[in-house]
């Protein structure tokens, strides 16, 4: 029996995860912060590295090339069909690591929380992150939390950083595209952006489209096993496939010709884009990748992609051509040709 007035060693008051909300004290470095970290983050993300409870996580490494990437997430709304800011934050960094052909090993997560943010929502987000990290088998091993005054943030912003190992003999980089190479995509385009948009208050339209947010590293491992000679991988997030293709064209000093009729686009996404005057080529994806490989490997790579659940709608959409102006061109389904330019300005803010 615990004596009155004497606190049990190691006891901390239970967070009110139903009705409580973030207070400035949760970022002050005091007991409230320790309580938040222990009861929410450590409990959800639990792993041997996090349990060290140091300001840094110590982990073993093997020799070879490593990659590191960081990604900030400011999506609004925080919850959308098919995902939320938590799963998005995990997948985003894993995918950036995977686009080097690397195996993602560890993640770090930073949270900027706004005073007044409901703890119930934070728990939902943290649980979603934990689930995404576990499913991907990439543990979140260290992190940080800061709290800003009400009005100085928008609920929660999450930054994730990841490290990964590049397998021996794999050299994937956006500067490797060569004339004659084929361009593939792993599935339907624009799903994430349209799913998020449909949830926006000022864009009320009904659709059953879900975000495609997903970790792509297993698909990538599967693709590399089938075609080790992949030249380029990139996940077309903000700015959509148009931005990603233009970046690659610039980095590799090549041109591209894509074929509109080969682009996999869901009918609902196409309809929403028509309705809002948007172009699906510029809409964000969070679970799709672009692959560029030598022409002779393309069919083999396509088969491998289609054999994986995340690549079942994969398609060859075009080829690399020589062009000192680095234009990405498209043969329209109508029979003409046009430029697929960089996105100019902001098509839709706060999408990821």
């Amino acid at each position: 029996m615990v004596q009155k007035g004497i606190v049990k060693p190691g006891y901390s008051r239970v967070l009110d995860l139903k009705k409580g909300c973030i207070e400035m004290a949760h970022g002050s470095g005091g007991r409230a912060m320790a309580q938040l970290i222990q009861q929410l983050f450590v409990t959800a993300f639990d792993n041997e590295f996090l349990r060290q409870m140091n300001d840094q996580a110590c982990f073993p490494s093997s020799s070879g090339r490593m990659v590191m990437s960081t990604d900030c997430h400011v999506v609004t709304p925080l919850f959308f069909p098919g995902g939320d800011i938590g799963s998005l934050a995990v997948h985003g960094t894993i995918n950036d690591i995977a686009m080097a052909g690397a195996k993602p090993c560890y993640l770090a997560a930073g949270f900027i929380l706004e005073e007044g943010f409901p703890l119930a929502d934070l728990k939902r987000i943290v649980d979603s992150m934990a689930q995404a990290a576990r499913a991907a088998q990439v543990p979140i091993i260290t992190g940080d939390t800061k709290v800003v005054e009400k009005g100085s943030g928008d609920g929660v912003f999450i930054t994730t950083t990841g490290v990964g190992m590049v397998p021996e003999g794999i050299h994937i980089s956006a500067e490797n595209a060569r004339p004659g190479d084929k361009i593939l995509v792993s599935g339907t385009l624009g799903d994430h952006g349209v799913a998020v948009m449909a949830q926006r208050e000022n864009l009320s339209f009904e659709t059953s489209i879900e975000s495609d947010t997903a970790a792509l590293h297993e698909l990538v491992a599967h693709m590399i096993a089938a075609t080790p000679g992949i030249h380029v991988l990139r996940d077309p997030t903000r700015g959509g496939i148009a931005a990603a293709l233009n970046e690659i064209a610039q980095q590799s000093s090549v041109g591209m010709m894509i074929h509109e009729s080969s682009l996999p686009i869901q009918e609902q996404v196409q309809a929403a884009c028509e309705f809002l005057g948007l172009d699906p080529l510029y809409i964000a994806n969070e679970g799709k990748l672009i692959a560029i490989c030598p022409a002779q490997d393309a069919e083999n790579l396509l088969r491998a992609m289609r054999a994986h659940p995340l690549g079942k709608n994969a398609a060859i959409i075009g080829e690399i051509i020589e062009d000192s102006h680095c234009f990405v061109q498209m043969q329209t389904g109508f029979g003409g040709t046009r430029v697929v330019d960089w996105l100019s300005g902001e098509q839709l803010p706060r999408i990821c």
Partner: protein
Amino acid sequence: MKYIDEFRAGGLARQIAAKIASEADPLRHYHFMEFCGGHTHAISRFGIVDLLPANVHMIHGPGCPVCVLPIGRVQNAIQLAQIPGLILCSYGDMLRIPASNGMSLLKAKAQGADVRMVYSSADALKIAQENPQRPVVFFAIGFETTTPPTAIAIQQAQALGLKNFTVFCNHVLTPSAISHILQSPEVRTFGLVPLDGFIGPAHVSVVIGSQPYEYFAEEFQKPVVIAGFEPLDVMQAILMLIQQINTGRAKVENEFTRAVLPAGNIKAQALVAEVFELRRTFEWRGLGWVPYSALKIKSRYAAFDAEQRFSIPALSIADNKACECGAILRGVKRPQDCKIFGTVCTPENPVGSCMVSAEGACAAHYRYGRFRERNNAVIKEN
């Protein structure tokens, strides 16, 4: 996608292209102006030029509401937005239009002005209802298509007794602009702009009908074919124009029969007539002062007229000297004829309004068509 794919079918496009090629007289040239920015956009986006014979030329017209609004009116909107506490609601394209001193609504927003992008006048009305203590101004722009929704917003604001909602009215009229172009010395006297016919507006004609164009066909002997905004509509309209010219006709024909009636939408017209009246004159970018070419809010709805509520001054601000938007809007020059196209003036840093709106001739050409001039040294890469 149903109702869209039918109008974008490549097979049908090739059939119409073959018919155009066989009917176009190789001994002459055909110059057609597509009045609307919607058509300009479709022509560029679907690469329609690739499907036309070399002697069929498309001239981009002034039918981009964002492009024709003079800098003075944009400056007025920026000044409104800078009034402390005021919320300015605007369609997205207007936000990036550069006014004086490189200022734009977007920059004003970054400096603290409360500028909201809306998709409709109803959104602006809702913002006014949600913020009863703050003045809310709807920056209304557009041709006949967007005028009826503005009229409804004003009537609803009156019905709701909203005291904080006003409209900065910049609605303009298509027929006045077309007649201004046809009467311009460049077309009528000097023949600098060869013009054999018009592709008539799609959505505008849904509201005003096909009858208002009959005057142009008759008086100026120029055929007009009203066409939808889908690429097959445009191809079909080009074919119909060629056929009229080859047979010496100058009539108003309606390709967009699925939406346009000869008399238009009577209900919408009545609504507009109830709330708006003609301005004696209005400044257009590129066209200058055009008599009876725009609308203002009738005195009985003066309580909802931002020009009266905020005593908005008449500002006339000259375009940047190097910018050819004016000549491009009149069809005298093409985007690629402008010295600063693609160099100083890009969609990221637009100098002229034609580079801002997706419907603007320069933006459409930069975005979709500039690879055609890739051998010209003037095209600068990103």
